[in-house]
């Protein structure tokens, strides 16, 4: 609630944004052209990026070099920050502009893994996949540089997305913990598989994630979001996901949240009752919801499960996904408002509802992502007004 007694809802982003073409090209060592200069110019103007003419000059006048690539990546972070800030989002990051990808970036900075090629995620979207081949350790803290830079560049507060231990384990091939032979025809049971994965995930939690989190906290991190899109991959391993989260964060001095997406969320219950260090769950719901307006349960089929988050004994906040990131459809402010109002009604406490997209927006163009985020903030304001009016009437 704000100081004047009106209801105020926290807004935040989730993680990735598309990389601008001039960043993609310079990272890949390809030549930039007039369209890139124009992109940098027009988005710099549109977002009010301070000194963006320097970027245009950098792209136009300097020869490719590692130094230029690093500087362009920093500009990409400034643009992404401003995209989120100018849309009105309160807690922001840089759309993971400095990272290759949420899985690959973490694995690249870990010992014990080897790349095993590219796998399709859906349609023409892919991810790189590695195999664990030896003992796991942190090669070097892998978010420190970007966080230090972003602290100097951000105008809003920073929430750092970090890929979680269980997702890194389940998205990797196992060539180290499980048996390499003798598995055919009943040679290895499901219990054996789970035992191997537990050892794998907990080694990642202890030896990779935890020291990386500690390094961020030492730099002043206030809120770290542990991304676990793979959390519900195996129904019978949810306790393991919970255990790996707890091992990752236990005793560390920071606010921790978890991002879950594109899953059957019912599966998480009751397992996550044991995840009391998680102060917020940000969860994708819009992907499953109707696009019609309305604030009743039947109007909001995608949000049916939220009462289970409400009833968790440690009363975490819910990061309510209100933007479907898989479509260019731009949710109207009124649709966002109605999704929020329904959630607040279910929770009975607006302080426990935060507003966010379903997931990172990296598969959308900046035009679409920006329009969606602007409407998300506008819809949040409409919801705040409606809730404040309702509160005033009840007094």
């Amino acid at each position, binding site marked *: 609630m704000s100081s004047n007694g009106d209801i105020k809802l926290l807004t935040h982003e989730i993680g990735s944004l598309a990389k601008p073409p001039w960043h993609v090209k310079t990272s890949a060592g390809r030549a930039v052209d007039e369209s890139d200069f124009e992109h940098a110019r027009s988005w710099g103007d549109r977002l009010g990026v301070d000194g963006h003419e320097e970027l245009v000059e950098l792209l136009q006048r300097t020869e490719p070099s590692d130094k230029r690539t690093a500087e362009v990546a920093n500009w990409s972070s400034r643009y992404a920050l401003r995209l989120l800030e100018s849309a009105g989002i309160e807690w922001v990051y840089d759309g993971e502009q400095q990272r290759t990808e949420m899985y690959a970036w973490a694995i690249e900075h870990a010992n014990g893994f080897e790349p095993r090629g590219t796998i*399709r995620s859906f349609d023409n979207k892919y991810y790189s996949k590695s195999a664990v081949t030896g003992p796991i350790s942190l090669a070097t803290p892998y978010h420190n540089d970007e966080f230090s830079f972003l602290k100097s560049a951000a105008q809003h507060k920073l929430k750092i997305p970090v890929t979680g231990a269980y997702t890194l384990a389940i998205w990797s091939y196992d060539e180290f913990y499980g048996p390499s032979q003798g598995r055919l025809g009943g040679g290895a049971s499901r219990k054996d598989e789970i035992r191997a994965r537990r050892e794998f995930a907990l080694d990642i939690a202890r030896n990779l994630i935890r020291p990386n989190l500690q390094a961020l906290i030492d730099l002043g991190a206030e809120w770290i979001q542990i991304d676990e899109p793979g959390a519900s991959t195996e129904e019978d391993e949810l306790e393991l996901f919970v255990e790996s989260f707890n091992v990752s964060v236990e005793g560390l001095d920071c606010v921790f949240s978890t991002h879950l997406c594109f899953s059957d969320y019912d599966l998480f219950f009751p397992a996550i009752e044991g995840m009391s260090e998680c102060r917020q769950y940000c969860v994708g719901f819009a992907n499953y919801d109707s696009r019609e307006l309305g604030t009743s349960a039947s109007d909001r089929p995608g949000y049916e499960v939220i009462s289970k988050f409400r009833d968790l004994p440690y009363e975490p906040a819910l990061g309510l996904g209100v933007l479907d990131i898989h479509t260019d459809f731009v949710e109207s402010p009124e649709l966002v408002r109605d999704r929020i109002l329904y959630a607040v009604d279910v929770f009975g406490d607006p302080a426990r509802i935060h507003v966010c997209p379903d997931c990172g927006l990296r598969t959308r163009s900046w035009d679409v992502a920006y329009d969606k985020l602007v409407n998300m903030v506008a819809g949040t304001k409409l919801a705040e007004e409606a809730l404040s009016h309702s509160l005033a009437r009840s007094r």
Partner: protein
Amino acid sequence: MEAFVPGIYPRSEALVQATRDLDRGRTTAEAVEAKRAQDLERLVEVQREAGLDLLTDGMLSWQDLFRPLVEATDGLKTGALTRFLDTNTFYRAPQAEGHAVRLTQPLDERYVAPLPAARFVTLPSPYAFSVGTGLTPGAIAEGVLKPQLEQVDAELVVLSEPFLARAERPTLDDLAAALERLTGGPRLALQITFGDAGPLVERGLFELPVDGVGVDFYATAATAVPEGTDKLLLAGVLDARNSLLEDPLELASFGSQLEQRVERVALVPNGDLQYVSEAIAREKVLRLGRAKAQRAEEAA
């Protein structure tokens, strides 16, 4: 002992890059199709090198197991992006728009590519296709799969079934009725991918009206297979979700063990090879061929 590779085969790194470029407006659809044709050529080569018995086109144009058929069917539409089992790969879940479905246009060469030798085709099983649609497997079989099968020129059609082994209380009655509607055309095999087929065997999996049954032997005990069955056993012995490369000798030895229980065995992957990269899939296919050759040598 036979060997072949049902399911969706992975794209090469070159085709991956081409499709990424297409999405970013850096290349043309024609250029992507040219890369896809190269992938198909290479896939045919590797199958021949491995000495596989029936060729596949690898379903290289299929977005997922259902989409081309969904898009060609009146009464169906693509739904939410949904995780495929315990993988990080997603599919658009089929959704029904009513009670009647009708395939308007059988899949053309883009989805069932011509091949230079005896071939098989993979299609979704009527049960898997019906999941979440509210339709019966029979309605899917009659309205979608049957008209498609009538147009298929293949030695065998493998009906891929990823969901039945994970169903809470699976019943095979509806599936049996659906499969009955599909008989009379090409030989059919129902492949239970990525899951323990043991409980389904107990419920009559090997009594279904198909010529072959596929079992994932990374999740199913060899002893689950009924002794003396006259069905072709599609033995899932390549682990399509693991980068570890199988030992051909171990595969051959396991195949030999199975041949003591059933008369006809085909070595296959336990599901779509698209869950490993193309480089790994290629090596797995070659090892499958070596296992078959090893077994043939032993038998001789």
